[in-house]
């Protein structure tokens, strides 16, 4: 392209390139990059509000990180526990999410099955993705709370007894979080994976069928290997999204992460410090740790995109 244009002309347009991208970069620097720098900077300071008194800012070196990474009296490190909670709940939601999405994607694209009503089905399964997460969670809370309609239904069926409380049992709260995340995301994943399968050369499936390969074999020997880049990409973006999990567990547990803080996610923990007492020091340190973890994952994504291209 460059060769086609006279050299002088291309230089004269260069300034327009800068002009066009300047708003983006100015805003990015002011509203994202500089705050990011401030976040890191804050992590080395003691800086919070104790009621009507401002404490700090006072340089404390790595004290905030030490506080985060020091084991508590019970021997566990809180921040690790919250990373763990986040990942466990992400896995609980994303395993069914990917399994069902993969199944549905295969069903929908399978010409022999020839599923009718695909459009409406896709419309239905994608819908939860657009629902306000906080509203969806609040709905779940009202439905599953002790005075909500689900409990009496399950009691009638004899599945649970009177004392059962969805919001005081680790596994049940985590399951509700996972169920919400599953519902919100499996439709999205289905559509992404479908597009991936559709981009596979149809003749490959044809020839496999002529060779008499079973559906399962076609799936494992053709679909999966060719789908892998997209699958991995979707999986890792989902994981990065999962690390940011906040709205659902926060609304479900009223920001407490109960019971026993087993539903507390990293962002909820961050929010604990940031909201209210404006503890910029500790919140900064948590953000930096989150940044590092996400950074590692981003590199992986970057690599997969690159490989996808090549």
């Amino acid at each position, binding site marked *: 392209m460059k060769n086609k244009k006279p050299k002088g002309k291309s230089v004269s347009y260069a300034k327009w390139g800068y002009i066009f991208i300047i708003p983006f970069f100015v805003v990015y620097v002011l509203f994202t990059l500089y705050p990011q720098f401030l976040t890191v900077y804050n992590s080395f300071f*003691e800086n*919070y*509000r*104790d*009621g*009507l008194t*401002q*404490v700090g800012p006072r340089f404390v070196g790595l004290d905030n990180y030490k506080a985060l990474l020091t084991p*508590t*009296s*019970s021997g566990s490190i*809180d921040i690790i526990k919250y990373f763990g909670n986040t990942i466990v709940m992400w896995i609980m939601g994303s395993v069914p999410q990917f399994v069902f999405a993969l199944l549905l994607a295969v069903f929908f694209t399978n010409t022999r099955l020839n599923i009718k009503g695909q459009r409406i089905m896709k419309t239905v399964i994608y819908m939860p993705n657009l629902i306000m997460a906080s509203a969806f969670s609040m709905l779940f809370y009202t439905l599953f*709370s*002790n*005075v909500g309609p689900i409990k009496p239904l399950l009691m009638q069926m004899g599945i649970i007894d009177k*004392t059962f*409380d969805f919001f*005081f*049992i*680790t596994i049940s709260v985590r399951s509700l979080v996972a169920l919400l995340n599953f519902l919100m995301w499996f439709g999205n994943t289905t559509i992404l994976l479908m597009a991936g399968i559709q981009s596979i050369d149809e003749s490959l499936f044809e020839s496999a069928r002529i060779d008499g390969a079973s559906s399962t074999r076609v799936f494992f020997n053709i679909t999966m290997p060719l789908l892998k880049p997209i699958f991995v990409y979707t999986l890792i973006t989902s994981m990065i999204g999962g690390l940011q999990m906040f709205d659902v567990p926060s609304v479900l547990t*009223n*920001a*407490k992460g*109960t*019971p*026993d*803080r087993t539903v507390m996610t990293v962002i909820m923990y961050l929010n*604990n*410090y940031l*909201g*209210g*007492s404006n*503890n910029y020091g*500790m919140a900064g340190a948590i953000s930096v740790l989150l940044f590092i973890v996400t950074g590692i994952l981003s590199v992986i994504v970057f690599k997969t995109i690159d490989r996808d291209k090549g």
Partner: protein
Amino acid sequence: MRMKKLMSGVLAATMVLSMALTGCGGNEESSGGKSTNAKKEEGKVFHIMAFNEEFKGFFESYFAKKHDDGNYYVGDAKVVWTIVPNEGGAYQDALDRALLNQEDAAADEKVDMFLAEADYIAKYVKSDATTDVQKMGVTDFSNAYKYTVEAASDDNGVVKGTSFQCCPAGLIYRRSIAKDVLGTDDPDEVQSKLDSWDKFDDVAEKCKKKGYYMTASDGETYRTFSNNKESAWVDEDNNLVIDSAIQSWMDQAETYAKNEYTILGDVWGEEKEQQMLDTGKTMCFFGPAWYYNFCMGNAMDTCKGDWGLCQGPQSFFWGGTWLLAATGTDNEKAVADTMNAFLNDEKICSKLVEKNQQFVNNQKVNEKFASDPDYGNEFLGGQNDTALFVELAKDIKFQNTSKYDQLCNEGIQQYYREYLKGEVTKEQALDNFRKYIKEKYPNVNVE
């Protein structure tokens, strides 16, 4: 389209006109009023911060004037409310931010008066964020209960606000259940069967046998214990202290949970709410006068009159809302007038008792109702609760408070409930509570 524009123009003009007119009327009134405050220009907006709608309701019914624009006014000043719910310290945070920003805030944004509860009043009274109300013209505390004045005074005895209620609390029982379990619903007889925790436990067992609950929340009796603490939640060296009174509550809650004497749920929770319907199966609730109105709405609607009040096993008080004057207010007269009205205006105080079942911060008015043989609270089946509260009010001691009390009180109940529900060990529950406090207050030593 043009018609619409014309119409809206006319409407706007009338509104401006009417506002100007009412404004003028107001001016005359105030300049003809007290001369002591005339030198200062009063602000146009009377900004009040609160944590719920309770006081706003009384204020609008009995004190502020509603103008044609639909807004309420005190003198010339339009009343603007900022209401932020208490839970999790959200109100305190919002209030702190507003007060710290008070100097830079525009005149209409400045906080003029704010409401504070017993759990955190100390924090504001003992700071520069509140100001002397005696200088504004709130001087007559002769009818106020002493503890309400003490709670609103700083270490030098400067009074920074007033309370519009006094909050001795008692045991509110459901008469029909009391009859069934105790064979009587007479307040004195019920009291004689419930005047110690041992008796209370016995009755709880009887309740259970008859298929009732003694209380509808594990935190129901919390305040009866926490109010009788011997030390503050956070001591002078910033150490978190779990007082023996709190330990006693924890022991009781454990027993009650184990024996299923109580429903395991929040003291403000939905399950407890349901227990106040006519279908409720719970005998005892603990609270002061504001409790009927504020917490027992379901009962008011469905089973009015099926309630009685007695002292219960241990005297205590619960809550109470103070009106505090914010430093930097430009509506001193409005602030002072409001405080005086809800403290010393006998008409208003009487209405609060008669229509809202409040126990007001005016001894004269309370005693008038207490000794009035014709007065009875319909909600309590005609019982004269004011008479009992007058007695109980004598026991109130406002002591061992700290500015950390709200979250400590909330937190201990929430985290301990996880133990009661069997999800964590007691040690884990307390550990989680300490973590919660540490996150909220990094300078408090929790170990």
